[in-house]
Protein backbone atom coordinates (compact mmCIF):
# COMPACT_ATOMS: atom_id res chain seq x y z
CA UNK A 1 0.00 0.00 0.00
CA UNK A 2 2.59 2.51 1.12
CA UNK A 3 4.86 1.33 -1.68
CA UNK A 4 2.17 1.85 -4.26
CA UNK A 5 1.71 5.40 -2.99
CA UNK A 6 5.48 5.98 -3.13
CA UNK A 7 5.70 4.63 -6.67
CA UNK A 8 2.79 6.86 -7.66
CA UNK A 9 4.52 9.91 -6.14
CA UNK A 10 7.68 9.11 -8.11
CA UNK A 11 5.62 8.81 -11.28
CA UNK A 12 4.07 12.23 -10.60
CA UNK A 13 7.56 13.69 -10.19
CA UNK A 14 8.66 12.08 -13.44
CA UNK A 15 5.61 13.58 -15.17
CA UNK A 16 6.49 17.05 -13.85
CA UNK A 17 10.09 16.64 -15.03
CA UNK A 18 8.92 15.41 -18.44
CA UNK A 19 6.69 18.47 -18.76
CA UNK A 20 9.75 20.64 -18.10
CA UNK A 21 11.72 18.63 -20.65
CA UNK A 22 9.04 19.28 -23.26
CA UNK A 23 8.55 22.97 -22.39
CA UNK A 24 12.10 23.87 -21.37
CA UNK A 25 13.10 27.08 -23.09
CA UNK A 26 16.78 26.19 -23.41
CA UNK A 27 18.60 22.99 -24.26
CA UNK A 28 20.14 22.85 -20.78
CA UNK A 29 16.69 22.80 -19.18
CA UNK A 30 15.85 19.74 -21.18
CA UNK A 31 19.06 17.94 -20.22
CA UNK A 32 18.45 18.86 -16.58
CA UNK A 33 14.93 17.43 -16.72
CA UNK A 34 16.12 14.24 -18.40
CA UNK A 35 18.80 13.82 -15.73
CA UNK A 36 16.10 14.18 -13.08
CA UNK A 37 13.94 11.58 -14.82
CA UNK A 38 16.91 9.21 -14.75
CA UNK A 39 17.50 9.68 -11.02
CA UNK A 40 13.80 9.16 -10.30
CA UNK A 41 13.80 6.01 -12.43
CA UNK A 42 16.58 4.57 -10.28
CA UNK A 43 14.43 5.17 -7.20
CA UNK A 44 11.37 3.72 -8.95
CA UNK A 45 13.20 0.51 -9.82
CA UNK A 46 14.51 0.23 -6.25
CA UNK A 47 11.03 0.75 -4.79
CA UNK A 48 9.57 -1.77 -7.21
CA UNK A 49 12.27 -4.32 -6.36
CA UNK A 50 11.52 -4.10 -2.64
CA UNK A 51 7.77 -3.96 -3.30
CA UNK A 52 7.73 -7.17 -5.32
CA UNK A 53 10.31 -8.88 -3.11
CA UNK A 54 12.62 -9.56 -6.05
CA UNK A 55 15.73 -7.93 -4.61
CA UNK A 56 17.81 -9.05 -7.60
CA UNK A 57 16.32 -6.11 -9.44
CA UNK A 58 18.36 -3.69 -7.30
CA UNK A 59 21.27 -4.60 -9.60
CA UNK A 60 19.27 -3.11 -12.45
CA UNK A 61 18.78 0.11 -10.47
CA UNK A 62 22.52 0.33 -9.85
CA UNK A 63 23.21 -0.22 -13.54
CA UNK A 64 20.67 2.41 -14.49
CA UNK A 65 22.41 4.91 -12.20
CA UNK A 66 25.74 4.22 -13.95
CA UNK A 67 24.33 4.52 -17.46
CA UNK A 68 22.34 7.67 -16.59
CA UNK A 69 25.44 9.49 -15.33
CA UNK A 70 27.55 8.53 -18.31
CA UNK A 71 24.74 9.40 -20.71
CA UNK A 72 24.46 12.90 -19.27
CA UNK A 73 28.23 13.36 -19.49
CA UNK A 74 28.23 12.20 -23.11
CA UNK A 75 25.36 14.53 -24.10
CA UNK A 76 27.08 17.47 -22.40
CA UNK A 77 30.33 16.71 -24.17
CA UNK A 78 28.54 16.63 -27.51
CA UNK A 79 26.75 19.92 -26.74
CA UNK A 80 29.87 21.65 -25.50
CA UNK A 81 32.45 20.49 -28.03
CA UNK A 82 30.45 19.10 -30.93
CA UNK A 83 32.57 15.96 -31.14
CA UNK A 84 33.77 13.07 -29.02
CA UNK A 85 37.45 12.85 -29.80
CA UNK A 86 39.05 15.96 -28.28
CA UNK A 87 40.13 15.58 -24.72
CA UNK A 88 39.67 19.22 -23.74
CA UNK A 89 42.15 18.59 -21.02
CA UNK A 90 45.46 20.32 -21.64
CA UNK A 91 47.09 20.17 -18.23
CA UNK A 92 46.97 16.48 -17.50
CA UNK A 93 49.82 15.15 -15.43
CA UNK A 94 50.99 18.46 -14.07
CA UNK A 95 50.89 18.90 -10.32
Amino acid at each position, binding site marked *: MIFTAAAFAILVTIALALARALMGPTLYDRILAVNMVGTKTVLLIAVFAVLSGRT*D*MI*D*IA*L*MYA*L*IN*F*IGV*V*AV*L*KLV*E*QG*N*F*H*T*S*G*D*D*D*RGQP
Partner: protein
Amino acid sequence: MKHNLILRVIAKYLFPVIALFAFYVQFHGDYGPGGGFQAGVILSVAFILYTLVFGLDTAEQVLSPGVLRILACTGVLLYAGTGVVTMLFGGNFLDYDLLALNPIEGQHIGIMLIELGVGVTVSAIMLVIFFAFAGRERS
Protein backbone atom coordinates in the same frame (compact mmCIF):
# COMPACT_ATOMS: atom_id res chain seq x y z
CA MET B 1 34.79 19.54 -20.65
CA LYS B 2 37.75 21.89 -20.88
CA HIS B 3 39.80 21.79 -17.68
CA ASN B 4 36.98 20.08 -15.88
CA LEU B 5 38.83 19.01 -12.77
CA ILE B 6 35.79 17.55 -11.00
CA LEU B 7 34.87 15.30 -13.86
CA ARG B 8 38.45 14.08 -14.16
CA VAL B 9 38.84 13.19 -10.49
CA ILE B 10 35.39 11.58 -10.25
CA ALA B 11 35.99 9.56 -13.43
CA LYS B 12 39.21 8.24 -11.90
CA TYR B 13 37.26 7.12 -8.84
CA LEU B 14 34.37 5.66 -10.78
CA PHE B 15 36.23 3.68 -13.44
CA PRO B 16 37.34 0.77 -11.18
CA VAL B 17 33.91 0.60 -9.55
CA ILE B 18 32.04 0.41 -12.86
CA ALA B 19 34.48 -2.16 -14.23
CA LEU B 20 34.10 -4.29 -11.09
CA PHE B 21 30.33 -4.12 -11.45
CA ALA B 22 30.70 -5.32 -15.03
CA PHE B 23 32.72 -8.34 -13.90
CA TYR B 24 30.14 -9.04 -11.18
CA VAL B 25 27.32 -9.03 -13.74
CA GLN B 26 29.43 -11.26 -15.99
CA PHE B 27 30.00 -14.01 -13.46
CA HIS B 28 26.66 -13.93 -11.66
CA GLY B 29 24.45 -14.58 -14.66
CA ASP B 30 23.06 -17.73 -13.06
CA TYR B 31 22.27 -16.11 -9.68
CA GLY B 32 20.59 -12.86 -10.74
CA PRO B 33 19.83 -10.69 -13.73
CA GLY B 34 22.85 -10.39 -15.97
CA GLY B 35 25.06 -12.33 -18.29
CA GLY B 36 27.59 -11.78 -20.98
CA PHE B 37 25.83 -9.17 -23.10
CA GLN B 38 25.00 -6.81 -20.23
CA ALA B 39 28.44 -7.21 -18.70
CA GLY B 40 30.10 -6.42 -22.02
CA VAL B 41 28.03 -3.26 -22.39
CA ILE B 42 28.82 -2.08 -18.84
CA LEU B 43 32.54 -2.69 -19.29
CA SER B 44 32.57 -0.80 -22.56
CA VAL B 45 30.60 2.02 -20.89
CA ALA B 46 33.37 2.32 -18.29
CA PHE B 47 35.89 2.76 -21.11
CA ILE B 48 33.58 5.22 -22.86
CA LEU B 49 33.52 7.35 -19.69
CA TYR B 50 37.33 7.29 -19.68
CA THR B 51 37.37 8.27 -23.38
CA LEU B 52 34.90 11.12 -22.85
CA VAL B 53 36.92 12.62 -20.03
CA PHE B 54 40.49 11.99 -21.15
CA GLY B 55 40.11 12.06 -24.93
CA LEU B 56 40.25 9.52 -27.70
CA ASP B 57 44.02 9.60 -28.11
CA THR B 58 44.66 8.65 -24.49
CA ALA B 59 42.08 5.88 -24.66
CA GLU B 60 43.63 4.47 -27.80
CA GLN B 61 47.00 4.38 -26.07
CA VAL B 62 45.48 2.25 -23.33
CA LEU B 63 43.47 -0.02 -25.63
CA SER B 64 44.65 0.11 -29.21
CA PRO B 65 42.16 -0.75 -32.00
CA GLY B 66 44.29 -3.71 -33.00
CA VAL B 67 43.98 -5.26 -29.56
CA LEU B 68 40.24 -4.63 -29.68
CA ARG B 69 39.88 -6.47 -32.98
CA ILE B 70 41.86 -9.42 -31.62
CA LEU B 71 39.65 -9.46 -28.50
CA ALA B 72 36.47 -9.42 -30.58
CA CYS B 73 37.71 -12.43 -32.57
CA THR B 74 38.82 -14.20 -29.38
CA GLY B 75 35.31 -14.01 -27.97
CA VAL B 76 33.73 -15.53 -31.05
CA LEU B 77 36.43 -18.21 -31.15
CA LEU B 78 35.77 -19.05 -27.50
CA TYR B 79 32.06 -19.43 -28.24
CA ALA B 80 32.56 -21.53 -31.35
CA GLY B 81 35.46 -23.43 -29.84
CA THR B 82 33.31 -24.60 -26.92
CA GLY B 83 30.79 -25.90 -29.42
CA VAL B 84 33.42 -27.65 -31.50
CA VAL B 85 35.01 -29.25 -28.44
CA THR B 86 31.66 -30.75 -27.47
CA MET B 87 31.34 -32.07 -31.02
CA LEU B 88 34.81 -33.61 -30.74
CA PHE B 89 33.61 -35.36 -27.58
CA GLY B 90 30.90 -36.97 -29.67
CA GLY B 91 27.88 -34.79 -28.92
CA ASN B 92 25.97 -32.06 -30.73
CA PHE B 93 27.15 -28.46 -31.14
CA LEU B 94 27.16 -26.83 -27.65
CA ASP B 95 26.20 -30.07 -25.92
CA TYR B 96 27.50 -28.95 -22.52
CA ASP B 97 26.88 -32.24 -20.72
CA LEU B 98 30.04 -33.74 -22.17
CA LEU B 99 32.42 -31.03 -20.92
CA ALA B 100 32.89 -32.76 -17.55
CA LEU B 101 32.23 -36.16 -16.08
CA ASN B 102 29.14 -34.89 -14.29
CA PRO B 103 26.48 -33.38 -16.66
CA ILE B 104 25.52 -30.62 -14.16
CA GLU B 105 29.15 -29.63 -13.76
CA GLY B 106 29.57 -29.71 -17.52
CA GLN B 107 26.62 -27.39 -18.07
CA HIS B 108 28.01 -24.97 -15.47
CA ILE B 109 31.41 -24.81 -17.19
CA GLY B 110 29.85 -24.59 -20.64
CA ILE B 111 27.54 -21.67 -19.76
CA MET B 112 30.39 -19.82 -18.10
CA LEU B 113 32.67 -20.18 -21.14
CA ILE B 114 29.91 -19.15 -23.54
CA GLU B 115 29.02 -16.10 -21.45
CA LEU B 116 32.69 -15.13 -21.24
CA GLY B 117 32.95 -15.30 -25.02
CA VAL B 118 29.83 -13.18 -25.45
CA GLY B 119 31.04 -10.62 -22.91
CA VAL B 120 34.49 -10.21 -24.49
CA THR B 121 33.05 -9.87 -27.99
CA VAL B 122 30.31 -7.44 -27.03
CA SER B 123 32.59 -5.10 -25.11
CA ALA B 124 35.24 -5.13 -27.83
CA ILE B 125 32.73 -4.54 -30.64
CA MET B 126 30.99 -1.74 -28.69
CA LEU B 127 34.34 -0.01 -28.22
CA VAL B 128 35.31 -0.50 -31.87
CA ILE B 129 32.03 1.11 -32.95
CA PHE B 130 32.40 3.95 -30.43
CA PHE B 131 35.99 4.66 -31.44
CA ALA B 132 34.98 4.61 -35.10
CA PHE B 133 32.18 7.13 -34.50
CA ALA B 134 34.22 9.32 -32.17
CA GLY B 135 37.22 9.45 -34.48
CA ARG B 136 35.15 10.18 -37.60
CA GLU B 137 35.84 13.93 -37.72
CA ARG B 138 39.47 13.61 -36.69
CA SER B 139 40.79 14.54 -40.16
